[in-house]
């Protein structure tokens, strides 16, 4: 059985003219990039567009990736910036929930179906009520399970600053999603 090529091998092949090899990187990183983009943008179609743009941008600029063995982190930073652009361009009025407004969800273990979908919707709205920086830090910490050190490296933000963002995000989510208190 052939061994999966490393990221550095794939980058070398793509830059050498084997464009199809790029599909390996797409397959390897699309899910994690999409998860992040979906939580950040709050919209599945926007997230898919962001991830597609990120991979296209990554392909065009692959020769600028200075550490091919860490191309996943490099692609992630492209997604981070594209999400920021996406959110900047979106009117704040589109976010229906004002910060501090409690959500209507009720505590419990809802059955799958409409009630579950409602909980999911309210969690989404609560996430969107966070600042972009808080949401980014919270998603990476708790959805992706990254360490603060990994986050600091990829976002170029200090560990104490990231901890502060996550802690504040938790406080705000606790206020918004009152049934978890």
């Amino acid at each position, binding site marked *: 059985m052939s061994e999966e090529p490393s990221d550095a091998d794939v980058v070398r092949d793509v830059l050498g003219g084997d464009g199809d090899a790029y599909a390996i990187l797409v397959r390897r990183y699309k899910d994690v990039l999409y998860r992040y983009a979906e939580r950040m943008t709050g919209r599945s179609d926007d997230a898919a567009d962001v991830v597609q743009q990120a991979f296209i941008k990554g392909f065009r600029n692959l020769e600028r990736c200075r550490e091919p063995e860490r191309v996943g982190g490099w692609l992630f930073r492209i997604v981070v910036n594209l999400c920021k652009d996406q959110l900047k361009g979106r009117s704040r009025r589109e976010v229906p929930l004002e910060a501090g407004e409690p959500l209507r969800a009720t505590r419990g273990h809802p059955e799958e179906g409409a009630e579950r979908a409602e909980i999911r919707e309210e969690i989404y709205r609560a996430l969107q009520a966070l600042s972009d920086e808080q949401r980014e830090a919270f998603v990476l910490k708790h959805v992706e399970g990254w360490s603060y050190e990994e986050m600091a490296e990829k976002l170029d933000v200090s560990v104490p600053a990231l901890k502060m963002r996550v802690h504040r995000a*938790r406080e705000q989510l606790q206020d918004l999603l009152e049934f978890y208190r």
Partner: protein
Amino acid sequence: MNEPLNRYLDGEIELSDLAPEQRREAEAWDALVTDVRQAGADEAPVGLESRIMASLHADRRPSASRLLDWWVNPHLVRVRPLIGLATAAAVAALLFLPSGDRSPVEPTGAATALVSEEAVYVQFVLEAPDASSVAVAGDFSDWLPATPLADPDGDGVWSGRVRLTPGVHKYMFVIDGTDWITDPQAERYTEDGFGNRNAVLAITGGAGAGSLAP
């Protein structure tokens, strides 16, 4: 939120390190985090990978090669500003014919330019009678099929207009959201290195120009 709870959620201490009342709060937080994690998709949508790779097929050459194309292959169409859409439309069919040939052509698949003082509009046309939808994607849209073409009379000829900046542009048509088609009527093409071709469209602005010829 108290400090021990944050330390627990940060993974610095264990649940058993918390006081009993803090454990209840910690468990509530664990439930919230689990719900947040489960609230969204775990995986990218089906088809995203193929969509990405299909769009890359249209843009798969190293930048050095693309730069070379700019100098070697461009087909420049110099047009002058036109007043009024009707006049522009009448001229549009002529723009991509060789110099000296000004006879009208059938719009069976092509890109033609309509130029005003403010912008360059390119009319994309594709005959695709079996298509349910047709869009155009190019380097001007980051290869996203962002501009749908229309076939209001149902005759299978799809068309739409895109505002472009002067320069050399590459594009393809996307049928039914999945099939990437090279414009059969394009004046120029570039190989993408994978056996496919991008159509090439080159436009210069009308500043000082008095001719429709390349």
